[in-house]
């Protein structure tokens, strides 16, 4: 599904450059729910932005279902963002002037596929994520958790190959965060969605099939949940993070 190979990215910092991604390689399989964790500055968000094609990579390859993303430009890039990728942002990025249902339909409207089928799909997503009752409300009238579930539904409206989520629980209380993670699980279970999520939150990451831990721009360790209970997996994640902290000290 998603293959990242030897990805490099540096930012100019005055007269020098700061290399944020130093040759990252990873893979995400079809229907997999993968999280990326790591301390601040480890390159998580930069990695996600490169995969989303929001930032151009300096070197390396990002392939989605065999298609190279790093070379895409203009309308081809827009088409990939619209139909093959779905996005969930930390601060939701819902449009205040549209209702919840209209926000969900937005990618379909942009792609010119907002027909009766899309509307039915939007209604189904509302039902799955428990936001049917607020479908006609505006973002300013709903809670943070509801906003993020709306964003998840929006990400799924065009049935993308991959959902990219950037700290989706970062702005939420624990109850709302749990609801959002549950919505990802539902998307995976009911719709077969593949999800790639960047998070700080070990609780959110513990729901994933696999967690990639970054440190200083490289993959430090990859942990698979396998058959472990969620709580045990979270403990294992916390142990790894503590271990990384000791190594860094």
């Amino acid at each position, binding site marked *: 599904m998603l293959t990242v190979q030897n990805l490099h990215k540096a930012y100019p910092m005055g007269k020098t450059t700061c290399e944020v991604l130093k040759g990252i390689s990873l893979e995400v399989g079809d229907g997999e729910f993968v999280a990326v964790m790591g301390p601040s500055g480890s390159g998580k968000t930069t990695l996600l932005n490169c995969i989303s094609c929001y930032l151009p990579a300096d070197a390396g390859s990002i392939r989605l279902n065999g298609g190279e993303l790093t070379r895409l430009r203009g309308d081809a890039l*827009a*088409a990939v*963002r619209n139909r093959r990728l779905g996005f969930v942002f930390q601060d939701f990025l819902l*449009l205040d*002037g549209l209702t919840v249902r209209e926000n969900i339909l*937005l990618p379909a*409207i*942009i792609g*010119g596929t907002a*027909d009766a089928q899309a509307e039915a799909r939007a209604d189904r997503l509302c039902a799955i994520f428990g936001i049917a009752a607020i479908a006609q409300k505006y973002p300013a009238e709903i809670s943070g958790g509801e906003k993020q579930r709306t964003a998840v539904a929006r990400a799924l409206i065009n049935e993308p190959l991959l959902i990219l989520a950037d700290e989706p629980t970062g702005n939420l209380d624990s109850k709302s965060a749990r609801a959002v993670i549950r919505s990802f699980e539902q998307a995976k279970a009911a719709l077969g969605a593949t999800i790639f999520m960047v998070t700080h939150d070990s609780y959110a990451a513990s729901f994933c099939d696999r967690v990639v831990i970054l440190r200083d721009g490289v993959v430090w360790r990859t942990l698979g949940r396998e058959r472990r209970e969620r709580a045990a997996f979270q403990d294992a994640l916390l142990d790894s993070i503590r271990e990384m902290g000791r190594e860094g000290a």
Partner: protein
Amino acid sequence: MTDFSSVYAALRRRSRGQYALLAGCCFFSVLLITAYVCVMRAPTVLAVLPEGGDSRKQVMMIFALAAVGCAVFTTYAAGLFFREKSRETGVFLALGATRAQLRRELFRELAVLAFGACAAGAALGAPLAWLLWQVFRLFVADSAEMALTFDPRAMLLALAFCLYVAAVLFLLGGRSVARTDVIDVVHESHKSEPIRAVPRWYGWGGILLLCVGGFLGYQVPSFCVLVLHWYAPEGLTAIFYLPALAGLYMILLHTVVNGWGRRRHRYRDLIATSMMKFQGRQTVRSMLVMTLLIAGAYFASFYAPMLGVNAMLSYDARPADYAYHWRADQDIPQEDEVRALAEQYGVTLTSWTQAGMARLAVDGYASVEHEGSLGVTWEEEYRERLCSDLFLSESAYTALTGEPLDLAPGEIAGVMDAQGEGQGVFGGTATLVTNCATGETWPVTTVEPLRNDLLFGRFVLDDGDYARMTAGLPADWRETQVFFNVQNCADTYDFAGALFNEIVDRSDPAVALFDAWDPVVREQEIAQNGYYWCDPEYLEENGLEAIDYAQRDSSDFRLYWQYMPQFRVLDKADFVRTMAVFLVLFIFIAVVCFAAVFVIAFTRCATIALLNRQVYDDLRRLGAPDAYLRRSARGQVSRVFLVPALTGTGLIYAFYTMILYFNGDPAGISPGEAAGMLACLAIIAAVSLLQYAVYRLTLRRVCKTLSIG
């Protein structure tokens, strides 16, 4: 909702405020500019503003200021609009919208908005100008020549401004869609506009640059003409004002970022100061535009009091209530007829003096202009007959003025005005005098000038010289000057009007001459060019109205007829009517500029409030009481109003004083000008009160936006 256009329409409905603000700013700018150009290019106004004259230059200069102000204001409003819209654009791009898709929708919106705002502004500009003009006619001054007509070609200037507005909208709109960094676009609206650290020397350095620029900008054109003998293009000499503009910007930056003096309570105004600082460049730019507009508005406002006070003082200072002169070949009412007319009106003459004058040619240096690669240059060329002036004998001068005078043979004395000024208009010196009828010449020596407002521009000769030099002159080279006084001058308006009409009625067309008409210059010009620009048939070609006895109440006639009587009561009473177009024009300009200032200040403050609503909510959560929040809001609003008001007012007052000083002939400020400057202070006080009212209104609106009770 199934297509992208309907999404845009829905978002537009929810962001009505933003669209209204942008449309309002565009509409207002176009409205003001259209109203201004309609008046500036109106035949009514052009007829009284001589081409190439100072008044027309001033009107153009203030128009340039207003146009720059409105252009910056519109650009700022457009920038703000796209900044607020950037989040929406970023979300669309992030969700896979193509730039072409976004551009199509945005440009469709902008086309409607630009066309609507510009068309409405352009359509209402002329009616607004007409309405304001009529209000001024009703309440300020009115005369026959005040009937306002428009030149449709003025709309071309308005159209040019509309095109600028549309270009800015499409350019900034296109740029906002063309940006490639989606994340940056999404977060654009949250970014502050920090100013780089501003060194403290910016304050004094700015003042220095302002003074240097103001001085150079004003003096360089004179230097070019007088020293380099070169009429430098105005665009070139205007460059010397640039240091003043840079200095002004530095002063405003220093004021916003550092502030003047050390704060005693460092933390008291922390919020207001810091927020102001991080509103950044836009605040300083708005302030700069406001400062320039305030300066322009005051410059226009000062016109009426300066002209009025100066004129009234000079009328009062005249040594005689009534003065008039006529060419000896004219049948003009003399003492018996005047006394009889006075009797009819119940007016008592208390004195009557009349004396003969004669027109003689004087020598001097003419400026001969050459068109070259650098533009027009000039050189001095000595001419035995440079022009003609009116000469009086010393006894005639004494009879008219009561001042004893004894000139030696061969001596002449020029008459300056009562303050001893006027050398720029009347040289007052000569070394050779010629009787143009006989061709005889006499060398003369110029002595200390005399002072008299009513005889300004004449020469006085020794009695013997006068008799000798004027012998053989025909009647059309001789004149008679009359001074007389009356009892209760202020009550003799009807008599003055009747006498004025009698003089005009009995003057024949041969003396319907423009003030500058000179028989000696005419002879030379006809010999050289085949025509004389000051002859009545050529005046209109030179942008001047011919003297027409039927238009005796027009300002052109009253200001430029060579034989215009000087009757104190008539001049005083008719001053406003005579100068009506000038007065109303400059009042109109001032009103337009001040309106622009108020709208810019109001919009800027409203924007600051909108952008900082979150900060005030946070402060409230931290426990800040309403009084604290109000003080903080007041700190920002007052700065937006106060800094440009103080800077613009101080700047123009100093600049105006400098102009008056250097315009003095010799340099200096006359008592009339000093009184005029005092009257200008009264104008400043009145406008400041108005500014304060707008400030209070704005503060109330800002507090409402920030939910401060």
